[in-house]
């Protein structure tokens, strides 16, 4: 502290011409000292702009040029984002620093109100500072003049109470009476003009510099030396600066390092609050620092650190991570002195250096070839702090070269040091997974059908794709005419009606981040390491290589000794949005087109291509970017021959990386989240990272396995679809028609005699057809993407990397073309790896084709098989003449998949030995009302279990019909009692009416929603008296719920219990969390959203933030969401268990939630595994475990203070402990149920 006081006010660094009153009040603020002005010239703003431009350049090469220009202008703006000014700090700190902070800071007593002003302030301040540096560079005399000014000005400032708010700085400030003020106002005006001129000049210079691609910042103009808060450390520092860089390490630092961190006295609670409040800003700074290092701007990063460090409040923002990051940067360059500075700052800030810090130090010493004594001191210090040397090599993520440097240093001091053995990775010991990870017993993990070299080539292809970031795919749209216009991907994707500005900004921001990530890995040499490891990894998968013992892919990858690459946090949402906003603005400014396309190019003036317009929805105003209508026209006629995709939107060309942690897996370079979440939601990632690594093994291995399934395109089906698509489409077969098929809106000029009313009518018609064509267009575009991708991948083998949602349900990452899509998409896909049909495979194919038609749902398998034999003629005809024959397949529920299956059957039966036929077609087994199955099993409901096929039976049970029958029983009773509604409903209670409601009850549909569903069904019935719609639907939904209550009494009790628990938990102010039986931690991400508004320029953007864990939960969503989410977490567990066990059996297995796919030959094995695992899963005391988890998580261990809290707590505990009693159903019977999954 005292050192701060003693530090002389370096006035020159604060003000420019220095006659602005605002700057006067600013001047009082102490700025960090900059000692090393040996070569002044570059300014804060400049440097910042430069680095920002460089960072952006690294992130998005194609826009870098334009960026640089804009950064020049927006430098101050960006700086503002990073400049933690006017931020309220710790109240405690504020007290101590109050006297030091100068008039401005003490004036902003209410920082919240002041913030916006402050921002303006800061902008101004920065320009001023920039100017000062410049002036200093230009002439010394001017600086002295400034000093005089500055010395004089604070008097004015204090005369004004020292708190002149910056808003008053505007010329003509509201009628200031005093003569002084009038004078000031005049001066202000003048000054403003001067300021403007200067600014312009500055801008010019900035542009010049920013455009110079090869520039690099000169460290000396930035702050290098820290200003410390601790006196003792300062003396040490002084020693540092006076002497040669090496010696102080030995002498002073040892004692310095021994000092206890100061900050431990910090109030814990306060710290917590601070943490959540600052989290975003901290991430922002960290991201900036990392970008700096990546682009070689270590000194800028250092400067930022120093400036923040020396200001009490902003120091609170800094974390050890940030110091470590900068240190690492210096270490890589071998800059020992600067590293030392940072090290001192770490101590000064009250952090105790951790492994990463020491690793950086050692690395630096290794590079610099430091003398032994220094290294020894360092190691000694390390062990004194309780850090183990070995752990540097195990716990700190280091790349190979860094490792070598550290090792060099260590070996110098300790020649006997040996690298530690790689610790064995922990093994999952969950009861459910014991079999999966058992070392003994038969294991036959499947291998791919491709040899090593092929796979290696594929890998190289995929790597190229990801390095290029985009994939151009030939469009399957029939080309009309060729055009030579060059377009950018973002523009092309812009629909004619425009794209919301916010959406575009988000998208651009996210894309920039992933490009940045790819480049970062390229720079840091991770790509090379990846190549090496991947080649070894392929030995496990390739057909022609052997590995010594059976390994799961993840285990093998870990055994390869791949060190985890340092984990990269995605930029926080505000940063991404801000960046995206900026890019979008550049797009608007930069893109131009000739105003008249018909005229030759140079004769017409250029007009913008994109326009920022607003759309009005009720009270909302939504900003859109809209392309020029002429451009849209041009695009439509040009019929772009290629479609461009992001690399992550295309299936992979080689097996995905195995998932090894919550943030590594799937794509080779592009970052992918293990758990997908809404943008900016951090809860999941945090939970996943905090849970023991072994707990996630089940999920990681399942996702890896699902991703490792190789796919190929069913070429024959694709040909047929393309034929339809390029012709007129066929909406009935879900091939959308081209826009030309929609009746073109009436565009001819109207005769002048048209009456007003007719015009109004016409307008409405026009609007209708526009709407229709828009819907058609989006359908068409969707199909176009899918088919283009399919065509692109036609002769390839490809992979669909998977991740999961927050409940553990798995999804393929590429969005457009995957097996989760509609019937058409599924029909286009088949396993790349074939498998002989075997003795029963053909039968399963036949049953499968009947299943797909949906014709024999309530018949046993034999009947289905017999039916297939019966219609074999039709099947063969469909396969041979799909478009010209009898078109049997078109009448099916899932026509395209039926067709694909028909073709497979035809091929199989026509071979000499069907059993030897190699089939690629996936055969599905579907759970019948899977949600209710899990409920029934949880509650051991006998009646319910029977109706959802948990009970063995000769014919499949149909729960919907059962419910309808039950409802009918109630209805008859009521009708007899004279209820009018019940009487009206006679003959209308059918399976169809209740089906949707029954299906969705499991997923939490309420009576309100259920009524709407039923009303819709009833409305469709033409003979139902429409005036009774409301009463009847109201009545029916009550009866459906009552029937379900009757049939699934246990399930309903469980549902109720879950709902009630969630209600109480969210009432206590927490989001509901639980752990699936496989060990995946789950949190419901429903919080009360906070709208954040920000950004200037074209428009302000507002987005809701859901990321902060301190937000209050959305009680309604938490409550209603818990039962369905919990059930989903169970069905995903069941799927994962089935998948893992199938993998051990050597099966190819993929899933669409509750629909499991495998080769026809393996259906019986999969069915057996599926049932066994269901029984095992539900044999666990799932609800008891849930209950005890919730109690331990949400009930206070200590007695709460307030009475209301105590009451809440005891009520919650009571509810949680009252686990519903199960019924009498014998779970083992599931194993013999044929139709459980069928």
């Amino acid at each position: 502290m005292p050192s701060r006081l003693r530090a002389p006010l370096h006035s020159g660094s604060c003000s420019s011409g220095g006659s602005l009153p605002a700057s006067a009040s600013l001047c009082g603020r102490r700025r960090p000292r900059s000692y090393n002005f040996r070569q002044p010239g570059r300014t804060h703003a400049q440097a910042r702009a430069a680095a920002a431009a460089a960072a952006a350049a690294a992130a998005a090469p194609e826009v870098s040029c334009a960026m640089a220009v804009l950064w020049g202008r927006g430098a101050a703006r960006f700086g503002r984002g990073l400049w933690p000014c006017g931020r309220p700090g710790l109240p405690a700190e504020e007290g101590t620093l109050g006297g030091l902070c100068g008039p401005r800071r003490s004036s902003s007593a209410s920082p919240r109100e002041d913030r916006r002003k402050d921002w303006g302030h800061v902008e101004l301040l920065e320009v001023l500072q920039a100017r000062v540096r410049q002036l200093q560079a230009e002439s010394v005399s001017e600086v002295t003049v400034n000093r005089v000014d500055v010395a004089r000005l604070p008097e004015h400032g204090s005369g004004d109470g020292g708190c002149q708010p910056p808003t008053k700085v505007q010329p003509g400030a509201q009628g200031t009476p005093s003569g002084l003020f009038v004078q000031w106002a005049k001066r202000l005006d003048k000054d403003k003009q001067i300021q403007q001129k200067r600014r312009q000049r500055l801008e010019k210079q900035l542009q010049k510099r920013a455009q110079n691609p090869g520039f690099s910042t000169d460290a000396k103009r930035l702050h290098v030396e820290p200003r410390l808060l601790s006196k003792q450390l300062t003396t040490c520092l002084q020693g540092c600066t006076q002497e040669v860089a090496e010696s102080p390490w030995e002498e002073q630092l040892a004692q310095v390092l021994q000092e206890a961190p100061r900050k431990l006295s910090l109030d814990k609670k306060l710290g917590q609050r601070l943490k959540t409040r600052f989290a975003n800003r901290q991430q922002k700074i960290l991201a900036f620092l990392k970008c700096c290092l990546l682009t070689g701007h270590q000194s800028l990063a250092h400067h930022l650190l120093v400036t923040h460090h020396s200001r009490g409040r902003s120091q609170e923002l800094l974390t050890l991570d940030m110091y470590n990051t900068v240190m690492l940067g210096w270490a890589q360059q071998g800059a020992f002195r600067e590293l030392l500075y940072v090290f001192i700052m770490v101590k000064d800030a009250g952090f105790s250096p951790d492994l990463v810090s020491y690793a950086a130090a050692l690395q630096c010493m290794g590079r610099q070839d430091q003398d032994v004594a220094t290294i020894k001191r360092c190691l000694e210090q390390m062990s004194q702090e309780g850090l183990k040397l070995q752990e540097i090599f195990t716990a700190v993520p280091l790349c190979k070269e860094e490792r070598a440097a550290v090792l060099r240093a260590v070996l110098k001091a300790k020649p006997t040091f040996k690298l530690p053995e790689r610790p064995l990775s922990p093994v999952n010991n969950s009861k459910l997974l014991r079999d999966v990870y058992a070392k003994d017993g038969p294991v036959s993990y499947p291998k791919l059908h491709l040899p090593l070299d092929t796979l290696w080539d594929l890998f190289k292809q995929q790597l190229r794709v990801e390095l290029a970031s985009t994939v151009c795919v030939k469009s399957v749209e029939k080309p009309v005419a060729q055009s030579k216009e060059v377009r950018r991907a973002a523009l092309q994707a812009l629909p004619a009606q425009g794209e919301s500005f916010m959406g575009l900004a988000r998208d651009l921001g996210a894309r920039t981040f992933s490009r940045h990530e790819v480049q970062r890995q390229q720079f840091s040499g991770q790509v090379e390491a990846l190549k090496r490891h991947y080649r070894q990894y392929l030995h496990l998968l390739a057909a022609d290589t052997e590995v010594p013992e059976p390994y799961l892919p993840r285990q093998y990858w870990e055994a390869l000794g791949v060190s985890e690459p340092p984990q990269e946090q995605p930029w926080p949402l505000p940063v991404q949005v801000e960046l995206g906003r900026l890019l979008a603005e550049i797009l608007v400014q930069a893109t131009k087109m000739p105003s008249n396309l018909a005229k030759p190019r140079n004769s017409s003036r250029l007009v913008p291509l994109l326009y920022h317009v607003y759309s009005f929805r009720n009270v909302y105003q939504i900003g859109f970017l809209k392309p020029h209508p002429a451009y849209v026209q041009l695009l439509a006629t040009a019929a772009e021959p290629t479609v461009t995709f992001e690399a992550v939107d295309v299936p992979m060309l080689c097996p995905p990386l195995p998932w090894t942690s919550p943030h590594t897996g799937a794509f080779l370079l592009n970052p992918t989240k293990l758990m997908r979440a809404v943008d900016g939601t951090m809860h999941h990632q945090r939970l996943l990272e905090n849970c023991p690594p072994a707990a996630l093994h089940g999920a990681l291995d399942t996702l890896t396995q699902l991703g490792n399934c190789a796919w190929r395109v069913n070429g024959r089906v694709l040909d047929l679809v393309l034929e339809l698509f390029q012709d007129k489409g066929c909406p009935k077969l879900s091939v959308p028609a081209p826009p030309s098929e929609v009746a073109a809106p009436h565009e001819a000029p109207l005769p002048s005699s048209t009456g007003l009313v007719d015009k109004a009518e016409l307008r409405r018609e026009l609007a209708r057809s526009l709407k229709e064509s828009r819907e058609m267009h989006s359908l068409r575009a969707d199909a176009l993407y899918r088919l283009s991708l399919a065509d692109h991948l036609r002769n390839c083998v490809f992979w669909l990397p998977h991740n999961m949602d927050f409940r553990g349900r798995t999804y393929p990452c590429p969005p457009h073309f995957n097996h989760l899509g509609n019937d058409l998409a599924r029909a286009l896909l088949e396993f790349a790896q074939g498998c002989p049909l075997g003795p029963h495979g053909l039968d399963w194919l036949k049953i499968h084709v009947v299943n797909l038609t949906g014709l024999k749902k309530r018949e046993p398998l034999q009947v289905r098989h017999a039916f297939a034999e019966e219609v074999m003629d039709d099947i063969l005809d469909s396969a041979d003449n799909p478009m010209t024959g009898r078109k049997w397949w078109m009448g099916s529920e899932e026509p395209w998949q039926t067709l694909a299956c028909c073709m497979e059957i035809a091929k199989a039966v026509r071979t000499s030995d069907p059993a030897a036929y190699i089939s690629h077609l996936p055969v599905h087994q579907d759970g019948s009302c899977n949600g209710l199955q899990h409920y029934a099993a949880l509650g051991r409901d006998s009646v319910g279990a029977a109706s959802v096929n948990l009970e063995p039976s000769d014919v499949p049970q149909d729960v919907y019909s059962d419910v309808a029958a039950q409802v009918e029983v109630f209805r008859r009773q009521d009708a007899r009692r004279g209820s009018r509604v019940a009487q009206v409903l006679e003959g209308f209670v059918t399976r169809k009416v209740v089906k949707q409601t029954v299906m969705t009850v499991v997923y939490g549909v309420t009576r309100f929603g259920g009524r709407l569903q039923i009303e819709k069904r009833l409305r469709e019935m033409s003979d139902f008296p429409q005036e009774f719609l409301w009463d009847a639907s109201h009545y029916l939904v009550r009866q459906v719920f009552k029937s379900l209550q009757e049939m699934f009494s246990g399930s309903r009790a469980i549902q109720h219990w879950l709902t009630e628990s969630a209600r109480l938990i969210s009432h206590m102010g927490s989001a509901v969390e639980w752990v699936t039986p496989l060990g995946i931690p789950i949190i419901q991400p429903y919080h009360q959203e906070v709208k954040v508004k920000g950004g200037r320029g074209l428009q302000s953007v507002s987005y809701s933030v859901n990321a902060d864990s301190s937000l209050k939960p959305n009680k309604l969503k938490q409550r209603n969401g818990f039962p369905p989410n919990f059930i989903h977490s169970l069905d995903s567990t069941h799927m994962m268990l089935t998948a893992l066990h199938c993998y051990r059996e050597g099966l190819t297995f993929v899933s669409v939630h509750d629909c499991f796919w495998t080769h026809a030959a393996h259906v019986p094995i999969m069915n057996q595994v599926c049932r066994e695992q269901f029984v095992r899963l539900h044999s666990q005391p799932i609800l008891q475990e849930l209950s005890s988890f919730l109690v331990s998580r949400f009930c206070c261990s200590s007695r709460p203070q307030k009475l209301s809290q105590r009451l809440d707590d005891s009520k919650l505990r009571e509810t949680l402990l009252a686990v519903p009693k199960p019924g009498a159903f014998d779970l083992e019977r599931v194993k013999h149920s044929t139709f459980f999954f069928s």
Partner: protein
Amino acid sequence: MWIPVAGLPPRLTLSSLVGAGRFCFLGAGAATRKPLQARNRRGLSDSAPQLCPDPDFRKSPSRVKSKSTLDFSRYITSRRLAETMAQLVRGKEKKPSHLFLECNPGPGILTQALLEVGAKVVALESDKTFLPHLESLGKNLDGKLRVIYCDFFRMDPKGTGAIKPPAMASQDLFQTLGLEVVPWKAGIPLKVIGALPIRSERKILWKLIHNLYSCTSIYKYGRIELNVLIYEKEFQKLMADPGNPDLYQVLSVLWQVACDIKVLHKELLEPSQEKLYFIQITPYRNLFTDNLTPMSYQVFIHMVKHCFGKRKCRLIDHLRSLTPLDAKDILRQIGKKKEDKVTNLYPQDFKQLFETIQSSKDYAYKWLYDDRLEGSTAEFCIFRSKNLH
């Protein structure tokens, strides 16, 4: 005059009605959110005849409750005011030749006054309670009064599905009344008289102006004249222009461009000191031109909305987001300067601006506006959601 002004003793003849709780009386009701509490302070004027001897409010409580505070109606209960209004709308004619649609007459004071001046009245009442009484008013009048169960302000609700009374389709109404479409350029087919619902004045105004520009709903039948009571606050906004930029807004522009608005009468509400204006809104005969038609009106509305979205901005900046045409050129054509702000433009200037752009010949694309951007006629959604049950 309003009841509190009349200072009449509270009569409980209608307390049964008040008990039903769904209406409030002008003035007092406007001041309080809880009509039931205020019951005893309120009375009805002397001349209120005996109404509905047996109001069946037992049927309605649940329905009433659901809309109680949301759906106030203003009823004119002052004899004096009713007479003044009737005189005003009669004008100089001896006997009003137009048909009057009276919205929510309630106790029928104004209805009576209108009948007395010899007008033909169609009473559109949305509260069933009043129907028998209203019907009794016209008993001996030879069909001069028709009473229809209908809510004028919920005419032509948006959305599909059957329209539940009292909402009604204008088509049905006009058919029942036997009215024909009157061309826009011809005279005024009928006059509407009533008070705008207290809480939804703006919504109603938005709905009406959309209907007007698109010539749909009631405006399909010609230039229908509105004679309505409106609160001062809303009235000022309606009539605002660059003279009082703080009140100037989209609705002001749209209404002033479309209609001639005259103040017929002012009335002071005693307890709250609020002013009510009785205004006459007559659509201009020459509203629609070659450029501004029911085909293109949406672009016009969008343009005005866009401009007022950032009202402090210069017009030239808005133009750049509205049209691909050269903004400076357009400004020159309408004789505005580069620095002119949105709030400097008079309503007619907006029309001129629109027509200038719309009539520019050289360019195929005059507007950036796209129907598809709009959530179609989103303003109307609020009316649909009011369906009871």
